[in-house]
């Protein structure tokens, strides 16, 4: 028998999509039965109370959670989000209900062995409720009490070889698309770079020294499957410099509608869009119109290709990314609070990805940016806002990168150019009396 009546939530058990309500109810029952004989370290009925508190929110149309206060594990400035219920009498099981952010493995592959370790720990020391995964990428262990935080951390580090993720004014847990592990489009090994930098910057991840949060995300190609361009202060997106590799035979297979060569790898199979038409579907949609198909031969004018991925996506068996691969770095993406949302702005059009020298070329840029931001960033000012405030030029200056037309979508429309004194012959100090000799008052 459920502890709380949940008429509102019960409605959310209907319909085909997996019901979180059904899952929570099943979990409440599992805990109530406790067939495994777990020595629950937090209230056994916490999931019942979680359902109860959410039901109350459904009744009121308002949340019943309060501010966290500062809870965490010793020496770390992040990884835990404190949370308390504002009706603890009604729902004592969730009076304290902090979450722990556990740094997910790159690419989000798991062995079941490891997952079972995690679930066992979380049944024991937490609510047994998780997010797989949080929006930043972490494994979110949702709901435990303050005394359990260090215990969970101990088990994670000592027994699982696993650290917490980020929160607070830290480097946040970096995340990547699966990249070369299972994608033919990936221009570099996203997981290798993500893993390396996560380890390289453990101190930045755990000990708040930044003006605000800072996010890294790694996309293997411009399709942006981890949405790095929209939600990371530094976004690393794979690209290439040379020609798209064309297999002309395979192109013609597409043109001939060979069933083993479905357009866009079959992504549009669910509707009859008519037979494949290379002109309509590829050439005409190429944003730069840099392709030609003549005499059964496809040519691409590389000088004008912007590597948007469209043609490759449509004909993956025929077109392959170039061989001279690397990545672009874009800076400053963030959600709208406070000054409006930003996409990442292109800072580095192309840099090689070289694991052999520990990605030197990349870490240098990161560290130059951090130095500047830590020096100049105001409290709660994201990198994107600092760039807006001090100007894109400043970002170029601190990273030692030369201005290139690639940096802009279009040059400035206003002529309000700030010159530096040393750029202007004669400088700014002038003698007004000398001037007045030629220009009477």
């Amino acid at each position: 028998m459920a502890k709380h009546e949940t008429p509102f939530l019960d409605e959310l058990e209907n319909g085909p999509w997996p019901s979180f309500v059904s899952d929570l109810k099943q979990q409440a029952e599992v805990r109530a039965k406790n067939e495994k004989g777990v020595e629950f370290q937090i209230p056994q009925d916490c999931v019942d109370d979680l359902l109860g508190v959410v039901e109350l929110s459904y009744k009121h149309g308002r949340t019943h959670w309060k501010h966290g206060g500062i809870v965490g594990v010793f020496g770390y400035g992040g990884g835990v989000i404190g949370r308390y219920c504002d009706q603890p009498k009604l729902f004592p099981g969730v009076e304290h209900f902090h979450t722990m952010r556990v740094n997910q493995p790159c690419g989000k592959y798991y062995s079941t062995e490891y997952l079972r370790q995690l679930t066992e720990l979380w049944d024991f020391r937490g609510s047994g409720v998780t997010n797989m995964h949080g929006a930043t990428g972490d494994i979110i262990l949702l709901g435990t009490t303050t005394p359990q935080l260090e215990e969970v951390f101990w088990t994670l580090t000592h027994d699982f070889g696993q650290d917490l993720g980020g929160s607070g004014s830290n480097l946040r847990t970096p995340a990547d698309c699966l990249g070369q592990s299972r994608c033919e489009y990936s221009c570099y090994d996203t997981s290798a770079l993500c893993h390396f930098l996560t380890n390289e910057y453990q101190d930045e991840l755990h000990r708040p020294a930044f003006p605000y949060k800072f996010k890294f995300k790694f996309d293997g190609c411009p399709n942006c499957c981890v949405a790095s361009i929209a939600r990371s202060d530094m976004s690393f997106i794979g690209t290439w410099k040379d020609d798209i590799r064309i297999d002309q035979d395979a192109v013609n297979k597409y043109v001939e509608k060979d069933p083993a060569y479905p357009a866009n790898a079959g992504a549009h199979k669910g509707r009859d869009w008519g037979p494949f038409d290379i002109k309509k579907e590829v050439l005409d949609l190429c944003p730069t119109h840099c392709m030609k198909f003549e005499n059964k031969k496809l040519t691409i004018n590389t000088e004008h290709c912007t590597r948007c991925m469209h043609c490759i996506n449509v004909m993956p068996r025929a077109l392959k990314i170039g061989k001279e691969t690397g990545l672009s770095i874009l800076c400053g993406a963030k959600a709208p609070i406070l000054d409006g949302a930003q996409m990442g702005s292109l800072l580095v059009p192309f840099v090689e990805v070289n694991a052999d020298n520990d990605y030197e070329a990349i870490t240098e840029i990161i560290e130059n940016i951090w130095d500047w931001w830590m020096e100049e960033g105001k409290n709660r000012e994201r990198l994107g806002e600092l760039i807006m405030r001090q100007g894109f030029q400043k970002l170029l200056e601190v990273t030692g990168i030369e201005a290139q037309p690639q940096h802009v979508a279009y040059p400035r429309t206003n002529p309000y150019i700030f010159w530096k004194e040393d750029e202007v012959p004669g400088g700014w100090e002038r003698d007004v009396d000398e001037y007045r000799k030629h220009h009477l008052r």
Partner: protein
Amino acid sequence: MAFISTGYNPAKPMENRITDIGPKDYHDFYPPVIANNKGKWSHHEILEPGVLVHVGDSGDEVYTVRVGGCRLMSTSHINEICDIADKHCDGYVRFTTRNNIEFMVDSKDKVEPLKNDLASRKFAGGSNKFPIGGTGAGVTNIVHTQGWIHCHTPATDASGTVKATMDTLFDDFQQMRLPAQLRVSMACCLNMCGAVHCSDIAILGYHRKPPMLDHEYLDKVCEIPLAVAACPTAAIKPSKQTLANGTEVKSVEVKNERCMYCGNCYTMCPSMPLADTEGDGIVLMAGGKVSNRISDPKFSKVVVAFLPNEMPRWPSMTDAIKKIVNAYSNGANKYERLGDWAERIGWEKFFSACELDFTHHLIDDFRQQAYMSWRQTTNFKF
């Protein structure tokens, strides 16, 4: 329930402490076929909704079955995932960047048994545990946030709005009949913990009332200068207040007309709650994207200024979403994302095609770049 210690000694926190070890090494979690072919994949195909094959240069194949994930997930559910992965996938599984679950097998004949197993599993309430789909030109899982399950600032629930929406769009999760990918995201407050600001369709929780002021406690619980500084519109200023009992306390005053209900003050100061049954609700945005394919990434636009919180299934919201998806599905060209379609036909036609009202709320008036969104041409459609 007795406290069981790991060995951690609060008096000596540094004793035997292990820190800064980072995440698990991903190499440990690769299924063999992935480990063997990494960086050497030739191409892929989506065989049917939710089922992909990737072919290596070596000729190796990996078949992936993708299923919908309710990312708010119990350990029981995760254990069930593990059971399946153990049974079919040699003990490996992965999660996608949009919280779907991927089961991978290394030969074609393992696909059907896996699919059948997945499809057979239902929750007690009747919903699917592991619906197959989420690939190609369709709807995939909604990335979302905490909502009333865990956060202190939401203006709506996350899991509930998502469930209602995914039920509505379920057919398109299991089919690939849309003009292109359609990505729906959800964030329960303006902080926008999902990438809601650039999704094809975004559901956003929104407050519409300035904070209440708990004058009696404010100075005790909050740092007034931090609360004042938190406000992006400078609506808050320190002020003395006289309580009902006559005592004078230090507190703050809010210029309501300047407030945009962002909740920044509340994040800094618990004595300034904003949540309100009638004030809170949903904003719908549309037309954003993040991929660079064909067109540049772009922000979502606000297309419905407000819908009330209609618990538990938000029918006005799902109706509006359905209208948008239908109009898009009928109107767009193959490969055309929702935002590209809206731009091609013109936003004025978007509103008529989707049968949505245009109201003054949808005209930008935030900061100077608002100007860029007004129409500076005579080129418009009647």
